[in-house]
């Protein structure tokens, strides 16, 4: 940038009478003064952009626009939302979420994991009052996996998510009769010397199921 003559600057700043300027500066003074007047007459750019932004945020309602379209516009328009939270409640909420994660809250629904599979138990026991499955997958505990016969046709069914791998099991009918699953296809002597056989179930992991 070339330096401006200090006398010219003083005249433009109204600190010197332009009539006192030397003749060779008169033309320069006239051009610069005209340019200053033009700039003074133009509104600042920042004002224009603020106005445009305001228009974009609050467009004038379109004549004839239906209530549905107005609702869509209202829903789609960004709005500032202010949420006032007490710090104690924020901490309590965070602690509650942490507790759920740490304690591994039980999830609903029998969704098998990677190392689990789904086992279907079916048996025909006409006239039975109750049928359950007891086996190595439930520590041979009674009352944990019951079969159902909802339509009373004597065919009892149950579905369970079990760990993948081999399991031995038996049906317990009416709480006292221990019977192998006739549809198991695999059996093994139970080893207690009475020739009784357990059914053998091999649960395929969900990752290996077709």
């Amino acid at each position, binding site marked *: 940038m070339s330096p401006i003559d200090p006398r010219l600057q003083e005249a433009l700043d109204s600190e010197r009478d332009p009539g006192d300027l030397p003749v060779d500066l008169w033309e320069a003074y006239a051009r610069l003064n005209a340019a200053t007047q033009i700039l003074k007459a133009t509104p600042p750019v920042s004002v224009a952009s603020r106005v445009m932004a305001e228009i974009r945020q609050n467009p004038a309602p379109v004549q004839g626009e239906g209530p549905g379209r107005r609702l869509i516009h209202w829903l789609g328009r960004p709005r500032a939302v202010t949420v006032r939270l007490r710090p104690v409640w924020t901490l*309590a909420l965070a*602690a*509650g979420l*942490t*507790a759920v994660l*740490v*304690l*591994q809250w039980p999830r609903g629904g029998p969704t098998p994991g990677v190392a689990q*599979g*789904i*086992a*279907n138990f079916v048996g025909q026991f006409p006239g039975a009052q109750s049928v359950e499955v*007891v086996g*190595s997958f439930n*520590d*041979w*505990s*009674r009352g944990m996996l019951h079969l159902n016969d909802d339509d009373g046709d004597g065919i009892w069914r149950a579905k369970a998510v079990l760990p993948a*791998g*081999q399991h*031995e099991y038996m049906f317990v009918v009416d709480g006292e009769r*221990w019977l192998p699953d006739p549809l198991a*296809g*695999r*059996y*093994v*002597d*139970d*080893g*207690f*010397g*009475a020739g*009784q056989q*357990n059914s*053998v179930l*091999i*649960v*395929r*992991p969900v990752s*290996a*199921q*077709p």
Partner: protein
Amino acid sequence: MSWKLVLALALVARPAPLIGQNGNGGGSTRLAGRVPAAALPAIDSILVAAAAESLPTEPLVQKALEGGAKNIPADRLVNGVRRGLLQLRQARAIVSHAVPGQSPPEGHVAAVAAALARGLSGPIVERLITVAPDEPPGPALHAVADLVAHHFDPDSAADLLVEAHNKGLRGVRLLDVAVAADHELQRPGGRTRSEALAHVRAMLPNVRPVRP
């Protein structure tokens, strides 16, 4: 109790272990109240012996729980658990012989013991383990046991499973080989067992996956 205390307890509480530790994997703790009291000392000593020999104790605990649930008398129950220990020892010997120089994984030992209980012979089991020493042997052993249970020749059944393995089948897909052989046997036309095995061998590794 204030809610702050409840929250604090919830944050520090962790699920407690279900079983204690007493030198046999906590097995006897799980058995208390589930098996006759008269059988507990003998079963406990069996579990301690198994743990001392680095054998898996869980199959023995399961056998004891099974006996208790079935109301098996104490002496027969102890004999059943002791028989399980003997099978585990035999299984560990087979695995060690098949894969020398390695500490036998507990899963391998338990799977071999289960195969022996299903009636497979030691040499057949050892052959199958030797083919794939680093893979869980359960599916291959069960596949051969399935075929043997359907009166297929044990050596021919083992041959088929070895070939299936060599052609890329792994894990539970090996069970499909036994199912395929059984299906071939049941096809109309009266195939012999060796013909059924030959048909399955010809289709390897593309045996149909069995839906659970």
